[in-house]
């Protein structure tokens, strides 16, 4: 509060000092008359300047909010990939759960494309390749013949390695999407 007061007083003093300084030079004259047109133009210019500044600030703030939401959603998706990684690492998982998980993953990425794809000032170009990578993993992993009367998917070492690589590629793509957004 005190700082603000001191700052205001200093500003007024500075303004007075500049005024006195300018009046001491002969080539600066102060007219006692004020042109109404000039006053009107000055006020109008001020209003337009304020409007532009305010509009730019609102747009910037909105873009930042959308970008923050987008980043949060992508982060959430990266975290959710841990479930898939655990299944791959364990070497088996429930067939129903895996298919539901993969279905939800595709639905979620499609939703990201729909929601964020049309946002101005947000780069979502990489979402298309992320969706393709996720779907490729979905096709590969559910191509395996299930065990236990269709209840389980079991992965051998080669498949574990292949699917882990695909999940890592997906993660890298998602991080890249956050950076490039």
């Amino acid at each position, binding site marked *: 509060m005190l700082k603000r007061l001191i700052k205001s007083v200093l500003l007024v003093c500075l303004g007075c000092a500049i005024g006195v300084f300018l009046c001491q030079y002969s080539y600066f004259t102060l007219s006692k008359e004020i042109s109404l047109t000039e006053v009107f133009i000055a006020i109008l210019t001020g209003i337009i300047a304020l409007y532009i500044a305010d509009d730019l600030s609102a747009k910037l703030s909105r873009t930042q909010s959308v970008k923050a939401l987008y980043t949060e959603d992508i982060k959430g998706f990266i975290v959710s990939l841990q479930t898939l990684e655990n299944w791959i690492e364990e070497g088996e998982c429930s067939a129903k759960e895996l298919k539901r998980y993969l279905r939800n993953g595709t639905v979620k990425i499609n939703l990201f494309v729909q929601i964020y794809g049309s946002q101005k000032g947000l780069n979502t170009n990489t979402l298309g390749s992320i969706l393709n990578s996720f779907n490729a993993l979905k*096709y590969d992993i559910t191509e395996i013949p299930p065990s236990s009367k269709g209840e389980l998917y079991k992965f051998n070492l080669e498949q574990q390695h292949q699917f882990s690589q695909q999940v890592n590629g997906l993660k890298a793509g998602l991080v890249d999407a956050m950076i490039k957004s």
Partner: protein
Amino acid sequence: MATLKISKDFTEYPGARYITDGPFSGEAFFNELLREKFDEALRANVILTVDLDDTAGYASSFLSESFGRLAQEFGVDSVKKHLKIISRQEPDWKDRILNDYIPNASKRQSQAFVNA
């Protein structure tokens, strides 16, 4: 136009490729429902609409087996002419069926034969 909604007319939990893989397989879907419905649509000269939505998710083996067999039995051109796929929740399945499983049905079958 004839309609076949998998979640309602077959199961909410589609299985894998063959009947030996477990319940609600692609093979069972083709034998019990898809072949008959498509044949009816063909005879009536109407389009059969297969709706993939509202299930708990698909295995690629289920879809490649059922639609691949359909293309093998009725021919790729006939299937493309009389089949419409609806897949709003996972649109990629529609592309996959129409651009891979149906056109490459014969290749898939020979590959499966070699693997067997």
